[in-house]
Structure formats: C-alpha cells, structure tokens
C-alpha cells in the first residue's frame, strides 16, 4: 500500500513541477518545452512501476517497467535479429519499393488527365480500405520469408503516397506555371525546378504516413506466418509462453524503430522544405 501512496506522491510532485514550469517565466524556452513532456513520461513510468509492485499485479497481466528493461537488455541479440528481419528486410524494402512505385505512378498520372481522373478517386477509395486484410493472401503467394512482408507493405503504402504526391504536383498556381511557359520550359524542367519543390510538403506528408503504415504491415503480416524470427513472430509466440517481458521488449523495439523511422523522415523534411511556412520563423 505504501508503494501506491508513493505513486500518488510521485504524481503530485511531477504534476506540480510541470505546472510550475509551464506557467513559469521560462515557459517558452526550448529546454522547458523538452523537459515538460519528459517529466510527464518519467512520472508515468514511475507510477506504473510503483502501482504494479504495490498492488501486486501478476506479471502475466502487466509486468513492471524494470522487468521489461531487464528482459530487453538480456535478449538484445534475439531482438536485433527480429529487428533486421522485420524492419530492415520487410518494412524498409517494401517502403522503398512502394513509395518509389507510387511516385513514378504519380508522375505518369500527372502527364495524363484521363489517368488522373480515373486513378485519383480509386486511390482515395483504396487508401481508406483495410489493406492489412490482404496479408494472408500475400503470405500464401510469396511464402513465409520477408518477401511477403515487403509485398504487404508495398500495397499499404502505395495509395496514401500516390494520393499525396498527385495532390502535391497540382499545388502550383496557374501564375507560376504560366511563368514557366513564358520561359519555354519543358515538362521536365518545370517539374524539376517548380513543381517537385512545391510538391515536397505533400510528398513528405505521404512518406510520414507511410512510415507508420510500413511497420504495421510488416508486423501484422508476420501473424499469418513467418520464419522463426521477426517482431510479429516474437510477439505472438511469447504471448503463447506467457513471457510478457519479452512481448513488451518486442513492442518497445517496434515503438523505438517506428519513432526513429518517422523522426528521420521528419528530419529530412525539415532540411529539404526549410522554406515552407510551417518551418519559417519558429512556431
């Protein structure tokens, strides 16, 4: 019971510090902006640990963070194998193929008005469908290896990426396009110097949405069959063994790689679209 009391106390302290920081004089500095969510996260972790220990929740239901951390450190090599199998082989290759194909299709669609009017409504429709459902079919076609996971990822990222790129390519104003025409710019020149840069925010939006979808596709596809490696495989088999520490470690790996993947894309976006209104002149 004392541990639960400690948890309440910890929450009060964390919340108090956050209130002080958020309403204090330094509230708009970068350090405070970083510190407040970090304190919040640390408080939550601490409360989780204390409450789980204090009320003696069975580890089968919810293991404390310390146990997850121990399991994570103890199984680093296994988890690294799962990481390469699922993220590097399955998700990343599918992501590159899918986004590349969608980009090329978008260029093709851009050249033909008929294709645009035919493909865009279809793309919008497909982007809302539960494409994860094709996973069992693709696993049946491409086998249990990483190829089937990549195929699921390709299908999942293709349509959001296509819709975003096409929308981005039509982002320029008539005035700007007319200017290019007065320069007698070819389609390629005007694409490279005007329309691709203008489309970049949309393209990156598609890339960011796709980065999350890619991991989801790769992990869910492993529930339908996989070699004895991979994050989805690890999650489903470790649940069977009630090894919840391992399950949470695998989830931690997928969460970390998902965040890192998204962060990298967002970083590239910031570097390449520094001129865009959302990055100019601070927040």
């Amino acid at each position, binding site marked *: 019971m004392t541990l639960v009391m400690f948890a309440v106390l910890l929450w009060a302290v964390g919340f108090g510090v956050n209130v002080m920081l958020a309403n204090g004089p330094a509230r708009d500095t970068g350090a405070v902006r970083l510190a407040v969510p970090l304190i919040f996260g640390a408080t939550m972790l601490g409360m989780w640990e204390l409450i789980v220990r204090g009320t003696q929740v069975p580890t089968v239901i919810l293991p404390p963070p310390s146990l997850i951390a121990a399991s994570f450190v103890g199984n680093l090599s296994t988890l690294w194998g799962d990481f390469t199998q699922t993220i590097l082989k399955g998700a990343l290759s599918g992501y590159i193929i899918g986004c590349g194909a969608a980009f090329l299709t978008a260029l093709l669609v851009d050249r033909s008005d008929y294709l645009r009017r035919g493909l865009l409504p279809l793309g919008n429709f497909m982007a809302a*469908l539960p494409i994860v459902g094709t996973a069992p079919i693709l696993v049946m*076609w491409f086998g249990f290896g990483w190829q089937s996971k990549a195929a699921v990822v390709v299908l999942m990222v293709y349509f959001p990426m296509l819709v975003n790129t096409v929308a981005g390519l039509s982002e320029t104003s008539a005035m700007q396009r007319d200017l290019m025409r007065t320069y007698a710019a070819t389609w390629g020149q005007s694409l490279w110097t005007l329309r691709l840069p203008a489309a970049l925010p949309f393209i990156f939006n598609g890339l960011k949405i796709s980065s999350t979808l890619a991991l989801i596709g790769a992990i869910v596809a492993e529930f339908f069959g996989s070699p004895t490696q991979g994050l989805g495989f690890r999650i489903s088999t470790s649940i069977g063994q009630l090894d919840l520490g391992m399950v949470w470690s695998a989830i931690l790996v997928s969460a970390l790689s998902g965040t890192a993947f998204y962060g990298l894309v967002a970083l590239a976006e910031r570097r390449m679209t520094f001129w865009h209104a959302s990055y100019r002149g601070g927040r």
Partner: protein
Amino acid sequence: MSEDTLGKKSRGKSGTGWPRWLRLPPVLGMVLALFALWYVAVVPMNVKEVLTAAERAGVAVSPPSAVERRDMGNWALVMRNTHALGDSWSSDRPKLPAPHQVLVELYDSTIDEELNGRRGIVKSGTLSNRSLVYHAIVTLNATFLGFVIGTVLGCALAVGIVHSRVMDMSVMPWAIVSQTIPIVALAPMIIVVLYSIGVQGLIPKAVISAYLSFFPVVVGMVKGLRSPDAMQMDLMRTYSAPTTAVLWKLRLPASVPYLFASLKIAIAASLVGAIVGELPVQKGGLGARMLAGSYYGQTAQIWAALLVAAGLAAVLVWATGWMERRTLRKMGAKP
C-alpha cells in the same frame, strides 16, 4: 500523423469542376482495366495446379514431370501449354481465384447461406455463423463501440489540452509520438491480457479500435477548438463570457468541420483495428474468417471476406461524409 496532416488531407483536389457524369467514365475505365488485369493474372498464378489437373485428366502437358514444372517460370509454362489452360478460371483451390469465383463465393456465403442453408435465418431464425453477414455484424459491433469510445475520449482529451497549458505541453508530444508506433502490434497482447482478467467478447476488440480512432480525433479536435480567430475570442471576452460558454458557443461549433475530417480517418482506422483484433481469437468476425481461410487454403473465402471488409469501409466513410455534408449545411457553412 503530425498536426498538419489533417489539414492537408481535408482540402483534397477532388472538386476540379468537372460535371458528375463526366467524372464517372475514367473511373469505370480504370476499374474495368483492373478486372481485365486480374483475369489475365489468374492464368500464370494458377498454371501449376491447372497443369497437374490436366495431366491427371489425360491431356499431354509440355514438361511431363511435375518436378520439372516446379522449377520453371510461370509464364514459360503458360507459353508452352496454351492448349491446357481452359480450367484456369474454374479450378477448385486456386492460388488466385478469378473475380467471378470470388463473387460466387460471396453470394454463397451471404444470400444463399441465409436463405437456403440449414443454419440460415430463414430456416433457423438466427443468422448463420457460416455467413459473412453474421461475421460482418460481429466486426461492425466492435468497430462502432470502439469508434464511439475513441471519439468521446478523444474529444474530452482535446478539450482538456486546449484549456490547460500543462496538459498541452505534457500530453501532446506523447500523443504525436504514439502515432509513430505500430499500435496494431499491441493487438494480440491487449486481447490476451484482457482475456486473462476475465474480459472477453466485444470489449478487447473495441479497445483496439478505440485506440486507433482516438488520436486522429485528438489531433483534429485540438486544431478545431483552436480555430476561432482572435477577433471572435475577443468578442466573447467583451461579453465577459465564462470559459464554458466560450467552449459551447464558439469553440465547439467552430471545431465541427475539423471533427468530421478526423472522424472519416477514425472510422476507417477503427475498422482496421477491429479486423486485426479478431485475428488472435477465433470467435467470429471478418478477421477470423480471413485467418481461417488462410489456414485451410480457401482463397476464395479470404477474398470474399476482404471484399466485404472493403465494402464496409466504403459505406462507413461514405456515411460519415454524408453526415458531414448534412451537418455543415444545417449549420449554414456551405450554400
């Protein structure tokens, strides 16, 4: 999905001024092209099984041994055996069923099963547990429950975030980070954990649906609740309106367009959550149907379930869009 995602998504480029009847033919053309491609793809995908069946029926097949055929490319087999491919579109256990086979399966497992089956609604009074109608309703229940929970919680959190600086600074970054995590990976664990503490049936699936539909709503609603401009907020201040009045009379009405933009994303996400949530427990639902189909090699069954899921998603998104148009028109936003 970052904060600006919804804004960019909501102003799509669909209304380019084409009249409605001119917009349809290109789409139909694309759909027809897709079906044609599908029919063509059926031949190389199924060629090995079809040739084996033809060989058993006594037709001469070009490399006569199945071992040789196994190592050959599918297209090469098609080219060398054009005379023996007649059964490609009607084989029993195809790798890729032809569209009409899927449609037949769809008819068999919905209308035919309910009207003529021993367990169907006509003969037994309850929906057959072999019919996709039953499974679709199971999935829909979880989808709706999760969607409602997620939307209500999301709106509540958004109101909290808009009114409290501390919550904004501490919760919002985590909400955005959580979007980058493949949440669906948690699905089997959530179900097993809830099962072990005695919760089963609808709730575990709805929890996953709620989780997936929660964040689009939070992000959209925060944006929407902050959308009234300084002039409008100042007017409320000159009335010395209390915070609740500002919320009810200004912020909430102003957030409705943003809410619907997120609801359309949320309902689709909610359906995906329900389907994935059905994978670990084989207690009915479209996801369970797909997994069963993949275990027993019943491809047509998977495709039929997939088709129903796609139809559901389309109807749900369309219905949300219809409600959006109606509500906005009632509120006088659009002519």
